[in-house]
Each structure stands twice: as C-alpha cells, then as structure tokens.
C-alpha cells in the first residue's frame, strides 16, 4: 500500500499549463465567429439579386406554361368558333371590297 501511495504521489505532480493557451483559444473563437457570419457588403451577388431572379423565373414559368390538354370536344368547339369568326371576317372584307368597288 505504501508503494502504491508513493506511486500516486508521483503522479499527482502537476504540469504547468502553457502561458499563451488562452490567447490561442480566443483567436480561434474569433476566427470561427468571423467565418460563420456572412459579410453582405463584400458579396458581388446580393440577396436582392437572387430574389429578383427567382421572381423573374416564376413569372416566365406562369406566363409560358402550356395549358392543360384539351379534350376532343373542347378542340372541336374552339375550331368551330374560329372557323365562323374567320368566315365572318373575310365575308366583311369581301362586302367592303364589293362596296368600295
């Protein structure tokens, strides 16, 4: 037991903490914090640019997005309407043409 206590007493000898350790810790924390926060002033592309780009793309998609596929019945109705419209349009021209002549 005495031997063990001697051994433990030798192990109890304290080692000195390096002097500049806190400075190293301090600078590491500062550097970590700097790298975490984004400096918007230095950014070439700013958040407003990204926002405008997203709005523009959304506008493009909603404007030029094709409509849903039409059923045969709908296609027929539209084509029938178009035909009558064009017929009348040309009929009017002809009438005008005839009157003018």
């Amino acid at each position: 037991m005495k031997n063990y206590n001697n051994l433990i007493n030798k192990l109890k000898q304290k080692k000195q903490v390096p002097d500049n350790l806190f400075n190293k810790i301090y600078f590491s924390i500062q550097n970590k914090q700097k790298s975490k926060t984004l400096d918007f002033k230095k950014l070439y592309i700013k958040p407003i640019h990204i926002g405008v780009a997203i709005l523009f793309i959304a506008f493009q998609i909603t404007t030029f997005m094709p409509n849903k596929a039409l059923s045969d019945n709908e296609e027929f109705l539209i084509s029938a309407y178009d035909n009558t419209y064009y017929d009348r349009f040309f009929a009017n021209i002809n009438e005008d043409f005839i009157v003018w002549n």
Partner: protein
Amino acid sequence: MKLTNNTLDDFVKGDMAAFKDIYEATKDFMYNLIYKMVLNSQEAEDLTHDVYIKIYEKRKMYNKEYSINTWVNKIALNHVLNHLKRKQNIFSKLNNIYYHFQNSQKETDISETEDNVALNLLSQIDIKYRTPIILKDIQEVSYEEIAKIMVLPIGTIRSRLNRGRAKLKELYIKEVKDEKL
C-alpha cells in the same frame, strides 16, 4: 477562484471576460486531467484548446443546476475519450503496414527518469480503468462527481477503480523486481 452566478450568466450570454474567468478557474485541473489521459504534452495542449472552444460554443446548453466544473470536465473527458478511440482506430488500421515503425516510435513523451516511471506504468493500464484512477486518486474528485462526469453508477466506478489499482500495483511490483534484477 470562486465563480459567481453573474459570471456564469455572462458566460452563457457569450461574454469573453466571464469565459476567461472560467478558464482560469478550471485550466489546471483540465490540462492535468487531459495530460494524464493522453500522456503527451503537445497533444494535451491541443486537446485542451479544442475542449475550451467546444465549451464556448456549447455554452447555451449549460444547465445552472449543475456545477460548472462537472459540466466542463464532462465535456473534456468525452472529448478525450473520443480522440483516443479515433486514434486507436487509425492505429489499428495502419498497424499491419507500419507495425515496425509504430514499435520504434514512442507515442508518449515520457522519458526514462524515475518520476516518469509512474506515468509509464499508468499508460499501460486500459483507459476504462485509468480514468477512475486519474479522477479519484490523482485529481481527488469525489465519487458523486465522478459518477456525474462519467455518467456511470457509483458501484461501477468503485469496481473499476479497484481493478485499476490492482493492475497498477501489479505493474509497479513487476517494475521494482525488474530493477532489482
């Protein structure tokens, strides 16, 4: 150095002066704990550095119901154990390739002086049994606090401590006999 409640509040808010007070109050204990775990002064310095950064980053998780020393030592111990586990894994992978190289290189910075024979003996004990010896016999922490730091029942800590002490005594007797021969 006694830490007040105001210091702890300021530390949680991120105040550097309060953090320095905590550092000053805990550095000796922590550095020596880490040194005795890894037995290499450069490694101990690096690990202490990393542990304090971790403590600052995790400051919001500190619960004031517990002692700051217990919390700080718990983080330190877990960090060191993870480090040793990682190191052991790396060495076990490289073991086949660099077996002879590894044997020729000393991992610890313990020289062969008489005082350091004790550290050398300590390094031969498994980390599982070495930790309670370091905390109880060398750093003189109470059983209750060791239980909180290691998150183990007191009974387990007592049994590990006894096994560790027996192993250390055995190694010491062997060392003395070898010296006499």
